[in-house]
């Protein structure tokens, strides 16, 4: 046996089982490699994370955050990282996730999330993926911020159809045209990945797409998803920003800010478990400004004057889902 082979055999376990990150925000029933998971447990490049009635956050490689919703199965399939390069592969067998990858200058990064129909490539991006366990329901891929590449496992797949934007799209995210203009320069310089060759429909004055012109893949067969765009099956839809944020925060709310020492002491002692607001978080968007907020109490009225002592009946005329 050559010295090289000997070293490979000797070092293989250290490489295979070296830590790539940590478990955090573990709530409810979550399994790591089949065993009950807890905060701080180390992730390796062969880790399997299964959430049942619970959820968790994976902190990987120092600048990637993956929030995993309940009833999901995720495998870390590949990892390599040093100061100049980072490669991360994950396989979302089923379930929902929200992933954020911080932008890193001067670092060659390849982060890929595989599902049963397509693989999403991200860098400096915030994305949402929903891959239902039922194989008849196609997975959904959505970009919240930044751009992502989507490559279908079946290369012969026909191009997606472009749907009309969702009705109340409020333009709080960049429009397709703006995104193209803003991103082209940075894409070319930072990502080195395939450019957006999608045949975008012309935008009206308000930046909303007009007409169902299907996007086309790049030479590498990848489609580019821009902010607020969702690909589900063959359908590409420009989503309403409010809905985008509601869906994203349904997987995990944003981390609570620490603005004072007593908040920091609380996080140190009890973690962030009780800090997020109950429910999927407040919707964003213009239509909620000057409106008292979604937790506005509904007014109550007396419909039947003597009905059992004149109990007031709440009337749902305000947005109060939670």
């Amino acid at each position: 046996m050559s010295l090289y082979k000997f070293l490979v055999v000797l070092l293989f376990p250290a490489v295979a089982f070296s830590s790539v990150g940590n478990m955090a925000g573990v709530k409810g029933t979550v399994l790591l490699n089949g065993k009950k998971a807890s905060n701080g447990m180390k992730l390796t490049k062969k880790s399997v994370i299964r959430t049942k009635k619970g959820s968790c956050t994976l902190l990987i490689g120092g600048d990637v955050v993956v929030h995993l919703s309940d009833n999901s199965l995720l495998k870390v399939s590949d990892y390599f990282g040093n100061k100049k390069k980072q490669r991360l592969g994950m396989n979302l067998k089923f379930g929902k996730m929200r992933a954020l990858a911080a932008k890193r200058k001067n670092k060659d990064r390849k982060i890929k999330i595989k599902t049963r129909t397509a693989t999403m490539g991200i860098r400096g991006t915030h994305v949402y993926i929903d891959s239902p366990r039922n194989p008849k329901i196609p997975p959904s891929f959505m970009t919240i911020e930044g751009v992502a590449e989507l490559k279908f496992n079946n290369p012969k797949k026909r191009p997606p159809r472009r749907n009309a934007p969702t009705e109340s799209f409020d333009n709080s995210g960049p429009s397709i045209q703006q995104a193209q203009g803003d991103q082209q320069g940075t894409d070319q310089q930072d990502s080195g990945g395939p450019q957006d060759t999608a045949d975008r429909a012309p935008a009206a004055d308000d930046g909303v797409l007009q007409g169902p012109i299907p996007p086309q893949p790049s030479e590498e067969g990848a489609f580019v998803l821009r902010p607020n765009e969702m690909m589900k099956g063959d359908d590409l839809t420009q989503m309403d920003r409010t809905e985008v944020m509601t869906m994203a925060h349904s997987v995990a709310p944003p981390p609570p800010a620490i603005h004072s020492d007593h908040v920091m002491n609380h996080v140190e002692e009890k973690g962030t478990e009780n800090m997020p607001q109950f429910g999927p978080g407040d919707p964003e968007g213009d239509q909620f400004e000057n409106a008292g907020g979604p937790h506005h109490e509904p007014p109550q009225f007396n419909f039947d004057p003597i009905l059992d002592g004149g109990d007031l009946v709440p009337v749902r005329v305000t947005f109060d889902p939670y």
Partner: protein
Amino acid sequence: MRLPLLLLVLILLTGPQSSFADENTDREVVQTYVNYHISQKQYDKAEKRVRDHLADDPNDGERWNLLGLILTKKGDYKGADEAYLTAVAASRGTDKGIYLYNYANSKNKNKRIEEAKRLLNEAKKFDPVEPSATAALSNIIEGEELPKFKLVGPPKWDVDFNTLSGYDTNVQLLARNTLDSIARSDTASPVVILSPSIQYKKDYYHGLLEGNATPSWTYYTNSQVSRFIAYDAAFYAKWTPDLDFEKFKWGLSGKFNITYLSHQFTFYNWNQYFTFESVYQHSARSRTVFNVPIRVQNFQQATSSADERTGFAFGFELSHQISSGKNLFSFGVDFNRAITNGSNFRSYTYNVPLSWSRTFRGFSTSLGLEGGNTWYTESATSRRDLLLNPTAAVVKRFKGGWSGGLNYAYTRNISSVSSASYEKHTIYLAVNYELI
């Protein structure tokens, strides 16, 4: 000489800049990591993470403040002072006031009380920080931590105007009772309700005080015997103590409601509620609500002492709420014991309320179902009622403070006393305009 300068200006104007979207992603990532490191008491790692981030995003005042807090925790007051100073310079408004307070805390811990006082006087200029800064100035002890910081929002007024228009298939002048003096209407009628609603919130005595007043005017338009107007006014106040980040939160509320009816007869009743309200938050997705209401009620009408409904009632309301994606499910049980002056209305009631709500393409939809039993254990007729009450609502909020909703409810009361059995449908369109 001019060309390089021009080139420099062009590069600065057109060069690659990280977009706001990328900043948001990067800031959320670093905050998630830092929260984790702090929860693991890894302050060195937290510091390194924030410093790496600030090297790329030097205008992030919130993270400069975070670095200051981490360094204060580590006892590096000099480093903390520099971080707070940068945070203050990079921020404005309330954030600036918060960072000034933290800066003062660091100075005071480092036994530089005069500088701390000067910073607190600066922090006082920001209204939400003013109460904490004033309290700190009057209690400051050199070398010790300043009192717990709390943001105090300004008092807030909300004024709404509501209009409801709909149809009631069976306007209940009397329901679930056997009073003889007033016949049940059994009359279908279009109904119009007009109502302003005034709400007020204010930080008060280590907590939050909320109040609202909702007077309403209801016009039942049906002809002949049943055209009448009901006036109603509800006043509600609630106080909840500051229980930041605690799993168990509670509050005390009081509600007063008075109804006056003008018809061929006049009638009024009033109710007064005192309620202990509490919530136990298991996680961001599930919580249990437990309320203990006590009600005192007064009824003007009674034909006999046995039918006297004036009295009081008490009980509990227990429900569990689960948030899953855009859905919210709620189920629970209510129990109520009514002790009235007249024996015919002394009762035990339990209800099982279920509800589901969901946001869908900007609409808030909800379905509810409530079923329950009431036993009038001392009534002359041994009355027992079974109530079924499904409801549905869809609400849309529009720009400019407008919202509108369509509501439907079916009520079926099956009583062992036939005159107390009834059923009704109500459907109405509600429009709300938020004036303030």
